[in-house]
């Protein structure tokens, strides 16, 4: 009788307990899956099967919309064809000379590689082309889902290009599909790109890690070297760090300014690639071993 009274007095509200348990489960699940996605981009068999199955159905559903999109692009291209033709005619005169120079450089590099017995350099890579099935409907995640996965040789953290330049990295890999995180993602756990800025007075090496939403530009910081960087200088990957190959195009310098502490320089880079309307991507597999 006394024991029953004591238990009744100390019996807490059932709903509060249920709510607390649910909150704990949510925190644990989100933390574990977030850590798994950041540290190891490969999914387990069950999730891979679910993602691939859903991807297959989504590909079928996306077909009519893609067809309409491609038709619209075709009409736009047709309307812009005359203007582009005039621009290309102006560039074609110097094309022959450039092609010849490029061929000679390739011969020189092959000869030097043979001499040094080098099989791969930082610029060697394989390309895997993939179609974009869909994009994360969440505006804040900036993730593309593509139709190639580990069966085609894709691995987490590989660099990804669109037609014009780098757009991001492979975030997660399933057997037949993958997720790509764009450079514009505000995910604070995203992997960064080591870059090289080529200016008239020399090269500077730095790390690209932030995105300025207002300017739509990437921010490069932790720059080394004393070369004078100015607007219009070309920015590309440096190949350092062991992840992405060198010489992948990123963009051009928009402006140079001091960071908030006034200690180091920050370079704002306008990317070549458009981060929206992407239908086809190229995943880059670096061949040279990482450090």
């Amino acid at each position, binding site marked *: 009788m006394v024991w029953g009274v004591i238990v009744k007095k100390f019996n807490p509200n059932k709903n509060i307990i249920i709510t607390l348990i649910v909150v704990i489960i949510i925190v644990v699940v989100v933390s574990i899956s*977030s850590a798994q996605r950041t540290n190891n981009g490969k999914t387990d068999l069950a999730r891979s099967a679910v*993602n691939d199955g859903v991807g297959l159905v989504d590909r079928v559903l996306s077909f009519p919309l893609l067809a309409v999109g491609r038709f619209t692009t075709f009409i736009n291209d047709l309307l812009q064809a005359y203007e582009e033709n005039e621009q290309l005619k102006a560039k074609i005169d110097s094309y022959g000379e450039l092609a010849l120079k490029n061929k000679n450089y390739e011969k020189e590099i092959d000869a030097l590689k043979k001499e040094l017995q080098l099989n791969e350099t930082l610029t060697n890579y394989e390309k895997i082309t993939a179609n974009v099935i869909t*994009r*994360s*409907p969440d505006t*804040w*995640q900036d993730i593309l889902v593509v139709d190639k996965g580990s069966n085609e040789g894709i691995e987490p953290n590989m660099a990804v290009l669109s037609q014009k330049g780098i757009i991001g990295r492979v*975030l997660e890999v399933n057997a037949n599909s993958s997720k790509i995180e764009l450079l514009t993602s505000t995910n604070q756990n995203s992997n960064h790109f080591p870059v090289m800025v080529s200016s008239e007075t020399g090269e500077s090496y730095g790390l690209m890690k932030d995105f300025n*939403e207002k300017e739509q530009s990437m921010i490069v910081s932790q720059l080394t070297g004393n070369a004078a960087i100015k607007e219009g200088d070309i920015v590309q990957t440096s190949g350092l760090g062991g992840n992405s190959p060198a010489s992948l195009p990123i963009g051009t310098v928009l402006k140079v300014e001091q960071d908030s502490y006034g200690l180091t320089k920050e370079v704002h880079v306008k990317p070549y690639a458009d981060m*929206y309307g992407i239908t086809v991507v190229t995943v880059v597999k670096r061949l040279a071993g990482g450090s």
Partner: protein
Amino acid sequence: MRQRKNIKYYAPILFFFLMLIDGQLTLAIETWTDNTYFASVHLMLLGFMMAVPSLSKRQLLLTALVLGWICDSYYVGILGVYTVALTGTVLLMITFQNVVEANMMTAFFGLIIFSTSYELISVILQLVFHLSEVSFLLFITRVLGPTLLFNMLIFVIFSYPFKLMFTAKS
């Protein structure tokens, strides 16, 4: 009686297809507005709202849990965000059904409330777990506003067909 049983089986499959169609239409709108406005399409939420009177609470919550998990796994890779947002919103729908008289007018305002709660829950979870940085001004002007406007239009076009599809006839 037969039709009620059928709804129990085909409703989850329809919700799954609506989830994928939502993703594709959201992408199409982004391209159409030249990446200025990011309206999220919520056909799946409209479907759930119309199906609440016909399906049991357990089935609705279980379906929302599973679909939310699939959505998390397929679109984001982090489990928990859409799972909580969708399950929470469906729970809200069930609660509303018990206290509010169901007609087209209340359903219209209900969709506005549920779309807002869905978007807010997913944004708040991402902020709490540092999964992204969210500018609230951007969220209100370029995401939530267009989302609500577009979903009002969705309601006008699809509410009656969805009502026919998801209401069980006794």
